[in-house]
């Protein structure tokens, strides 16, 4: 029994944490290496994946029946939309949070920033007055730092169903994660950057040998705007704002390629949102 000293239950907990997207980058790399080297671990991981497939493929979610919606309307005086659907993340609710929530959000973000730095060792980019250019420069700096350190990704996964929950556990923003592999932009993972004193989610896509960092920020007071491109320190930067978020994409790809990536991302993100029910009035 080669692995006896490692303790089977610890192994299982670690396999499970990998499956659940709860490991950080070094943990993922470590576990993936161990799984590759140990047929028992790889067999167990395959069983865990098979179980997940069986559960998630089994339509275990249930739509709240209309009878329940009617009862809730009667009990609360708030009428639910009759259309039942599955909303994964609170994009709509996050768009205009009440003032108190924003204050608390900012306090929580500060605390999280400290925790993120302690846990992940990410850098904080401090700029006294956060104008639009400052944010773009900070996003470019985060992208560059990732490439220089050889660790552009905290959660390594090509599966958006792993990346999204991982980010959800780290930042107070719901992240739009879409699969663009069929468009030539493979999802590689995600990381947490700290921009304007707040932890924000960054997705990392790969196109041939190029990395693309796509950072999602709270919209703040920015106006809705179409993508505009500029060059910062030799990197192409495209930024835009929709009615929920502000996005900044950075890459050393050619500018037309980055435009194409942005167009594909926006199309996929819009079609994902169409799967959400209309916002309740």
């Amino acid at each position, binding site marked *: 029994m080669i692995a006896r000293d490692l303790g089977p239950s610890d192994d299982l907990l670690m396999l499970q944490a990998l499956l659940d997207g709860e490991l950080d980058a070094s943990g993922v790399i470590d576990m993936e290496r161990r799984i590759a080297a140990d047929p028992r671990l790889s067999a167990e991981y395959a069983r865990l994946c098979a179980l997940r497939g069986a559960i998630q493929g089994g339509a*275990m979610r*249930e739509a709240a029946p209309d009878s329940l919606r009617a009862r*809730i309307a009667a009990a609360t005086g708030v009428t639910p939309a009759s259309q039942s659907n599955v909303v994964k993340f609170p994009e709509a609710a996050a768009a205009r949070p009440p003032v108190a929530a924003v204050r608390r959000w900012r306090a929580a973000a500060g605390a999280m920033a400290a925790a993120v730095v302690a846990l992940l060792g990410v850098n904080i980019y401090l700029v006294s007055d956060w104008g639009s250019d400052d944010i773009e420069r900070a996003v470019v700096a985060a992208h560059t730092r990732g490439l220089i350190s050889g660790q552009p990704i905290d959660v390594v996964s090509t599966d958006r169903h792993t990346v999204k929950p991982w980010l959800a556990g780290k930042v107070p923003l719901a992240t739009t994660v879409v699969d663009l592999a069929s468009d030539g932009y493979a999802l590689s993972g995600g990381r947490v950057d700290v921009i304007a004193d707040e932890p924000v989610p960054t997705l990392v896509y790969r196109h041939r040998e190029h990395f693309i960092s796509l950072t999602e920020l709270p919209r703040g007071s920015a106006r809705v705007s179409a993508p505009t491109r500029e060059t910062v320190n030799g990197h192409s930067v495209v930024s835009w704002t929709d009615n929920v978020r502000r996005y900044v994409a950075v890459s050393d790809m050619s500018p037309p390629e980055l435009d194409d990536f942005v167009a594909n991302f926006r199309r996929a993100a819009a079609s994902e949102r169409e799967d959400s029910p209309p916002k*309740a009035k």
Partner: protein
Amino acid sequence: MTTEAARSRFAEIVLPYLDDAYTLARWMTGSTADAEDVVQDACVRALRALETTAVERPRAWVLTIVRNTALTWMAKNRPANVTSTEGEEGPLELPELTDPAPSPEQNVIAQADHGAVRAAIAALPQAFREAIVMREINGLSYKEIADASGIPIGTVMSRLARARMMLMNALGRPA
């Protein structure tokens, strides 16, 4: 007395998660009728709380209320179904990973039909069923499950591991 502000926050924060709420209540109570009662109670509680509470993670917040409401509701209305987890928590004794040979078991699990999966989940003891439903079906993180259930993250991990072992054992045997 409910203010208009609370109602509007209720529409933004709670209503998008009704399906999640109903799903969790359905799995916790094991009955569609009981799940409706629980979710209605939970909504009334949530609306009241929204007068004063700011919510940062709506889905986890809503599901925490549903979970607590379900436990209270079952203790009151279905006392026979409320099982203690005493004796089930103990040290986690997982079987050693013994069989390095490629096993057909994973194929059997992957091909388990929906009815078998539902039955296996339904047969789990309450605490394990709750953890696995929150993780796999509601998509909560370990931290969110820990907060919702009032238990440490380590306990969440061991409950999930145990639930998965039981499910794999139940589904992994060829019929």
